[in-house]
Structures are given as C-alpha cells and as structure tokens.
C-alpha cells in the first residue's frame, strides 16, 4: 500500500515535471504567460513587456507593490500603437526571488520569452546580477526603483527612471540638518545589504555632524538594543533605510518605547505597512520618496478604484489602498515602456533600445529623461511624514540636491 502510494506520488511528480518541461521549454510562451487585464480585445498583434521583479524573498513585498503599478497601467492602457498598428500589451513575469543567485535564470526566462523590453527590478543586487544577461541578449531594461549606481554603470542596456542613492542620501542628510538642526545621527542598516549600506555611506558623507553607524544581521527582529543605543548616544535623528520587513519592526518598536528621536527613511519606508505600524503612536517618521499621493489625482483615484475591486491586488498592496511610491514608479515605468515602443516604431528589442536614450516622458512622478549612463535626470525628492492619527502620509517638503 505504502509502496503503491509512493509510486503514485512519484509518477505524479514525474508527469508534472514533464508537463512543465514542455511548457517552460516552449518559447512561444502562450501557455506560460498571462494576458493581463482585458487584453483579449486588442487584435492578434501582441507585444510583450517583461516584468523582472521579486515576488518572493525579502524584497517580495516591495516588488509586488511595484508590479501593481505596471498591472494598473496595463489595465488602463492595454494596447499600444506601434508603427500604425495596434498591439496588445502583454506583461510577462519572472520572479527573481530577491536573490542574486536566482536572478540570472529569471532574466534568462524573460529573454527566452521574446519580450521587447524589461521593467524592473526592485532591489539593485538582482538588477546587477540580471543586467549582463539582458545586455548579452541585446534587450533593454528599465530599472524602476533600483537606486544603486552600479546598476547602470558599465551596462549600456540598463536604464532607470528613479533617482540614485548618492542623491537620496544627500537629500536626507540635508533635510536632517535643516529641519532638526541635527548634530548627531544614528545610522542603522542591514549588514551586507548594498542598498542600506550605500545610503548610509552617502548620508554620512553629506552629514556635517557625527554619525554612529550600526549594522544588524539579516533576519534580525530584535531592534531594541539598537534603538536604545541611539537614545544613549544622544542622536538627534535616526536614519534607517532598511527594507519593509525591518522597517515595520523598527517603527513598531519605536512606537512602543515612545521614541522621541525622529526616524528618517528612504524610499523603502514609503509603504503603507510602515504607516500602519506607526498608527496611533508618537513616532516621527520622515521618508524621501519618488511620489506623493495627491500629486496626480486621476491616477490616485483610478488605482484606488482598481484596488477596491481586485482583492488580490489589494492584498498585494498590504490590505489597504494607500499608494506606495514604488507603485507610482511602476506605473510610470509602464508608460515609459509604451513610449519607447511607440518611438521605436517596432517591437524589435534593438529598435526599442535605440529609442530609449532620447526618450522623454512626463509621468505621475515627474519628468523622466535619461542621461548618458542611462540614469534618470531627476533633481527632486519628496519628503513625507507620517500622520499617525490619520494613518496617512503628508507632504513635508520637496527637496532638491544642492
């Protein structure tokens, strides 16, 4: 009986493997990719846009919010005119699992599925690992919120529409000095995370006072010692540009210990989960971000309506309809992709790549144009603060680099 059961299971496994082998190996992709939204009405011409985002792993939450923007954009505008013909836009997903060792295969998957260009990713290290694969295949990629300078440097095929870490770090350091006249800052980041450590570094460089720098190991959840240390050191501000999972933890803890020191965060903290964690407490949170809700009312209302009717999307957004900046960035990235397709006049990836450098677009997060490295020319960051009574972000200031 047991043996029979084992055989049955094994057989099922082998069959499923064979089946997936078939569908994964087929490069026409009809079985393995999804026509998103109401894409069935646009005729038979299809253009594919790759979505290279983490859906699992420690950046999974951010990746999903970023995808929401693209999905909403795709729902809003499911077709595109290319060279006088209407094409249905199909988003092809590949999960890079926030892991540099999984990113190359995810990137390869997109290449094999014949996409015209790629959007993503949240988290720079996956972008760095996947970049050369795109470059090798002659496929252009548009980074949405990967802010590490290393993403585009040395890779002709990687572009991005967000600002960079040096800019963000500097902006926040300036803000800390202007708003709080801070003399001492406590910097906290995840050990070995290039995003965190890069920002800490730029903050430190731009900050005139003293900095106390600390790093915590991956998967830490006890931050009490770190926050107590910040108090003991007499820091005027705490800067913790950490990923969402850690930031909710830190904010919750700060709320429970009635921390009076303001917490500064980067774009990763701009998440409704952080808001929720801070709700009803006295924690002061300031984040720099790409987009402030209310900046483009049409977009806000539209996406909120969509979230309200699509429960999966709502869950992916963390269960409420506050719009994260990464979502707005994903939305803009989608439209930049459409513009690039239009400008190229073809779905050929080479043509799309050639069209990108000269492209300009005004999106909900501002004007987008690329410099010679492929980075966005941006000089403004929004600084928002959490309104803990209402559980919403309010715009504090708009900061530009000096």
């Amino acid at each position, binding site marked *: 009986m047991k043996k029979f059961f084992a055989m049955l299971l094994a057989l099922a496994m082998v069959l499923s493997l064979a089946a997936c082998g078939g569908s994964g190996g087929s490069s026409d992709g009809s079985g393995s990719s999804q026509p998103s939204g109401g894409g069935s009405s646009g005729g038979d011409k299809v253009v594919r846009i790759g979505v290279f985002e983490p859906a699992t792993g420690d950046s*999974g*939450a951010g990746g999903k919010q970023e995808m929401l923007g693209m999905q909403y954009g795709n729902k809003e505008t499911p077709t595109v005119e290319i060279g006088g013909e209407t094409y249905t836009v199909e988003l092809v997903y590949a999960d890079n699992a926030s892991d540099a060792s999984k990113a190359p295969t995810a990137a390869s998957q997109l290449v094999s599925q014949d996409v015209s260009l790629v959007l993503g990713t949240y988290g720079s290290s996956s972008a760095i690992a996947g970049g050369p694969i795109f470059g090798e295949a002659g496929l252009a990629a548009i980074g949405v919120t990967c802010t590490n300078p290393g993403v585009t440097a040395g890779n002709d095929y990687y572009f991005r529409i967000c600002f960079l870490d040096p800019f963000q770090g500097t902006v926040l350091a300036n803000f800390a000095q202007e708003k709080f006249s801070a003399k001492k800052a406590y910097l906290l980041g995840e050990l070995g995370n290039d995003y965190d450590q890069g920002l800490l570094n730029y903050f430190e460089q731009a900050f005139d006072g003293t900095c106390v720098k600390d790093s915590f190991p991956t998967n830490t*959840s006890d931050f*009490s010692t770190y926050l107590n240390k910040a108090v*003991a050191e007499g820091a005027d501000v705490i800067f913790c540009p950490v990923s969402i999972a850690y930031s909710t*933890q830190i904010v919750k803890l700060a709320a*429970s210990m009635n921390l009076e020191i303001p917490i500064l965060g980067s774009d990763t903290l701009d998440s409704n989960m952080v808001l929720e964690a801070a709700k009803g407490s006295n924690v002061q949170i300031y984040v720099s971000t790409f987009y402030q809700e209310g900046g483009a009312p049409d977009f806000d209302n539209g996406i909120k309506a969509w979230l309200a009717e699509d429960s999966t999307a709502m*869950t*992916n957004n*963390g269960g409420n309809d506050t719009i994260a900046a990464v979502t707005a960035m994903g939305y803009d990235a989608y439209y930049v992709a459409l513009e690039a397709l239009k400008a190229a006049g073809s779905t050929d990836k080479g043509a799309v790549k050639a069209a990108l450098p000269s492209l300009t677009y005004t999106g909900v997060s501002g004007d987008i144009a690329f410099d010679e490295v492929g980075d966005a020319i941006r000089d403004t960051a929004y600084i928002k603060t959490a309104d803990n009574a209402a559980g919403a972000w309010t715009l504090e200031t708009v900061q530009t680099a000096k």
Partner: protein
Amino acid sequence: MQYAISILLSGVSLGGQYALIAIGYTMVYGILRLINFAHGDVFMVAGLMMVYLTASLPLAVSIPLVLILTVLLGFVIERAAYKPLREAPRMSVMISAIGVSYLLQNLATYITGGLPQMYPEIPGISATVSIAGVSTKWVTIVTPVLVLVLVAALTQLINHTKVGMAMRAVAKDFETAQLMGIKINAVISVTFIIGSFLAAVGSVLYFTNYQSIVPLSGSLPGLRAFVAAVFGGIGSIPGAVVGAFIIGLSESIIKGSNWSIFSDAFTFALLIIILVVKPTGLFGEKVTDKV
C-alpha cells in the same frame, strides 16, 4: 546606566525566548539525535496562525487555539516527515527536516504573499512599563519568569512521571528502551508535542515583543536557539536554558557595542570556542566510542 539596563533587559528577554525554542531542539536531539531544522519555522507558523486567527476570533479563544494547532503541527510533522525515516541514515532525516523547513517557509510566503504581518496586541503583556527609566513591554519581564516556571514544570514531568521516565530511557539508549517495551513512537510524539507547545508559547512572547512576522522570521531565532542548545550541551534541558540566556545576553551586549556587525559572528565564535574546549557543550554528557 540606563543604557546598560536596557541592554540587560533585552538580553534577558531574548534569552528567555531562545530558551523556549532551544528546549524543543534539545529534547528532540536527545531522543532522535536529529537537528530538527523545522523547529524555528514551526515557531514562525505559530505566529502567523495567531495573526490569522485573531482576525476573526477573540484573543481568549485564539491563544489556546494557536497552542493546540501548533502542537498538532509538530505532531503531524513528526509523523509525516520523520517517522517514516526512523531506520534511514541520519543525514536523510536531517534533509527531511530541511525539506519541512523549506515547505513551511514557502507555504508562508505563498499565503502571506511575503508581506510582513502585524502581530496582534495582547492586553497585559503588550503594555509598556518603565524600569529604572527604561521603557519596555511587560512581556520582557514576564518572559524569564514564565521560562523558569515552564522549565520547572518540565523538569518535574521528566523526573517524576512515567512518560518522563520513558523519555529519559529512550534518550539514554534507543534500542534497549525499545526492547524493554517502551512505546518509542509515543514517546517521540510526546517530545514533539512538548517542543511545539513551548515553541508556541515562545512565539507569543517573541512576536508580542517584535511584532512583524515574515516567512523568514523563524530562521534566525531558530538558529540562535539551536546554537544555544548546542552551547549548553545538546540533550540537556538546563543546559539549553543556561545556553539560551548566555547567547541572548552576549548577543545583546555585542549589539550594544561598537562591534555590532559581528553579533552573529560572535555568537558562533563563542560556540566554536566552547565546542573546542568542551566538545559536548557546557552540560553535555561525554560519549565514548567503544573499541
């Protein structure tokens, strides 16, 4: 001074939480010689269950329910993943444990979508209290006390009940115990039930303190608790508790120093030093290979 107290407090509370997980590791190891890698994930799942249950049920119902479900989970894991491998080489069983750990983590990722979940406030222990000017949650103070109470109860159970005697016998000599008519499988199940129960209690304490749960939340406390168990001499319950408090405190202290980036590394370095000096941990029994 205040800072020192805060470090001490967080160290003691961490130690208590690690101790509750470490007991599970140490008991299972004592009996099966198995590093139950899935134990940390059981702890995480207990936390997630609490999140989902409190969404629809009152706390008074969901806390006992979480304890029961976690115990059930531990029991099922043992029956499904370890029992069939009783005669297999030890490495296979350990791989099975890693497999269960993968499965639980991936299931959690699938269900939560990888988004951090907020642990509910538990009245009483979630409230803030101020000790010598350091504000902390009640749970910080409750934890070590509760740990000591539970450990005392557990020691009573092991030393003075029939089941406890059977457990000691099985830990001492698996084969002979079996020959003596002890129902090995029942004893092992009891071990897993106790371990999972303590992990569930630990998870309530831990996540009340650190309220956000992600699928990987179990892995770090799990690893630390395991290190604590080895440190104290795996198989020994007092050893696990002492080890857990030492690891918790030293972790807290090193985090508070200027070498915080080496807090993980330091824990392991401490472990390696102990193992080299005393190869079976602080309270471990010496095993001799008969020639």
